[in-house]
C-alpha cells in the first residue's frame, strides 16, 4: 500500500493539480456562480421570507437554512467539477494521455475525485464567506462539520465521475443534476425540518441521502439535527464504497473511454 502510494504520488498530484488549475483558471464559471446564487438565496429566503417564518427547530430561519445551502453548493460543485472535467477530457481525447501512461485506474479516479473535493471545499469556503454578511456562522462541532463536508464531496465527485463515463454528449452531464440532484436537495431538508412533513412522507424523506448530509452538517454548525449521526456516517460511507466499486469496474472495462 505504502509502496503503491510512493510510486504513484507524483502522478496523483499531477492529476489533482491539473484539476485545481482548471477550475481556478475558469473561476468565472466555477467559483463565482455559487457565490451569486447563495447571495440571492440569503436575501430572498433568509431576509425577506425568513423574517415572516420565524423560528424552525428553535433557531432563526436564516441560521436554519444556512448549513443546507452551503452543503448544496458543495455537493453540486464537487459533482459538476468531475463530470464536466472528465467528460471534456473524453471529448477532447486528452483522456488518452492518461490511458497510455503507466497509471492504475485507482490513481486516475483518485486524482479526479480529489479535484472535485477541492472544488467542493473551495466553494464551501466562499459560500460561508457570503453567509457571514447575513448571519453569524457558528461551529458547534468542527470534526463533524469537516468530516461530513469531506465525505459528501467524495460521494458526489464519484457520482460525477460515473456520470462522465456514461455521457456521450455535453447534455448528458446535466441530466443528473437537473433531474436528480436538484429535487433531492430541495426535498433534503435544506429549507425545512422533516418534522413538518406528514407521517408517511417523513419515512420517504429518509430514503434521500442528501437529508443525512444536510443534517449532519447542520449538527456540526448548530448542534441540531433531524437524524442520528451514526446513521448519517454509515450511509455516507456505504454509498461511497458502492460508487467507488462501480466507478472502478467501469474504468477497468474501459466504459466510454476505450472502444
Amino acid at each position, binding site marked *: 500500500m505504502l509502496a503503491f502510494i510512493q510510486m504513484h504520488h507524483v*502522478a496523483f498530484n499531477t492529476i489533482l493539480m491539473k484539476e485545481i488549475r482548471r477550475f481556478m483558471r475558469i473561476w468565472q464559471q466555477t467559483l463565482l456562480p455559487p457565490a451569486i446564487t447563495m447571495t440571492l438565496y440569503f436575501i430572498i429566503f433568509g431576509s425577506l421570507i425568513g423574517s415572516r417564518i420565524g423560528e424552525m427547530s428553535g433557531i432563526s430561519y436564516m441560521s436554519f437554512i444556512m448549513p443546507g445551502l452551503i452543503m448544496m453548493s458543495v455537493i453540486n460543485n464537487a459533482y459538476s467539477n468531475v463530470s464536466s472535467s472528465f467528460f471534456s477530457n473524453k471529448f477532447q481525447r486528452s483522456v488518452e494521455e492518461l490511458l497510455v501512461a503507466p497509471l492504475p485506474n485507482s490513481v486516475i479516479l483518485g486524482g479526479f475525485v480529489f479535484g472535485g473535493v477541492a472544488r467542493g471545499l473551495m466553494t464551501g469556503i466562499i459560500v460561508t464567506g457570503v453567509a457571514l454578511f447575513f448571519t453569524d456562522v457558528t461551529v458547534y462541532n468542527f470534526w463533524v462539520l469537516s468530516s461530513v463536508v469531506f465525505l459528501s464531496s467524495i460521494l458526489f465527485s464519484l457520482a460525477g465521475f460515473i456520470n462522465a463515463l456514461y455521457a456521450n454528449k455535453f447534455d448528458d452531464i446535466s441530466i443528473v443534476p437537473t433531474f436528480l440532484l436538484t429535487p433531492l436537495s430541495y426535498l433534503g431538508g435544506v429549507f425545512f425540518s422533516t418534522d413538518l412533513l406528514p407521517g408517511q412522507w417523513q419515512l420517504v424523506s429518509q430514503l434521500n441521502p442528501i437529508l443525512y448530509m444536510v443534517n449532519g452538517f447542520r449538527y456540526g454548525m448548530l448542534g441540531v439535527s433531524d437524524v442520528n449521526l451514526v446513521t448519517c456516517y454509515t450511509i455516507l460511507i456505504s454509498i461511497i464504497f458502492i460508487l467507488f466499486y462501480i466507478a472502478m469496474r467501469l474504468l477497468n472495462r474501459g466504459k466510454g473511454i476505450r472502444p
Partner: protein
Amino acid sequence: MSLLENYSGPALSISGLGKVYDNGFVALKDINLQVDQGDFFALLGPNGAGKSTTLGIVSGLVNKTQGNVSLFGLDIDGDVYAAKRLLGVVPQEFNFNQFEKVQDIVITQAGYYGIKVKEARVRSEKYLKALGLWDKRDVPSRMLSGGMKRRLMIARALVHGPQILILDEPTAGVDIELRQSMWRYLKQLNEEEGVTIILTTHYLEEAESLCKNIAIINHGVIVKNTSTRELLQELHKQTLVVDLIQPYAKRPKLESLQLNWLDDSCFEVDVNKGTAINELFNVFNQANISVNSIRPKANRLETLFVDLVRK
C-alpha cells in the same frame, strides 16, 4: 534501462490479435507481427485497414478481443505498467487539451509517468527545442498550426524516454520541408539512441526511404511482411510513360509490347525490370514512333501496394 540489458527478443510481438468493435464490426482478424529491437518499421494499408486499431491495442487505447501483445517481452495485460513505461505513442488524431499551454502539456504528461516537475521542465525544454516548438511554449495548444500540433504530440511522447515509439501518420498535414526535418529527427532517434520506431503512413516514399521493414495490412489481416529491400525486388515489372514528339491520328500497334494509349501523343507501357532503354528505343524506332521522353510511372512501391491490397 536495466530491465532491457539482458533481453534480446523482439521489441514488439503480436500474436493472434483480433478485434471486434461493439457494433459488431470485425476490424482485425488474426494479426501476427514481430518488430525487432532497433527496427524502423512501417505498417502500411489503405484507409480502414486496421492500422490504428492495431496500434491502439498496443498502446492501451483500444480493448482487444483476442490474442496477445508484448513489448520487450512484457505482456501488455500481465505487466501492463512496466510495458507502458517503455512505450511512447503519437496517435493519428490530436488528443491534447486545446486550452492548455504547449509546455504544460508536455510537463503534465511527464507527471503521469512519475517524473517530478523540476525534471519534467528540463526534459520538456529538450524535446520542445528539438522539435522546433520552444518559441511556442506558452501558447495555448489550439493556437498551433496542424504541423506544430503533430510535433507537440511527438515531444509529449518522448518526454519519459521510451524505448519504442509508435507514430500513427506522423507526417499527415506536415509540409515538405518540415517532413524532411521530422524524418531526420526520427532517423537520428533510431540510429543514435536505438529507439525502435513503428510508423504508419500513406506516403509510400516515406516508408521506402525511412523504414527497414514493412508490413502491409488490409481488411484486418497482414498481407505482406518483409524487408523494404526484398519488397522492392519483388517488383519485376515497371510501368513507363512515353511522351511522343507529335500526335498520331492513327495509333500504331506493336507486336512485342502492349501499348496503353492515354491520348494521341502519350502511352503507357509495361516492361520487365532490367530492360535496357536502348532496346526500347529500337523497338519504337522500327515502328516509326518518335519519342520525346520516357519516365517511370509513379512510385514503384505504390504500384505493388495497389496490387497487393486489390487482391
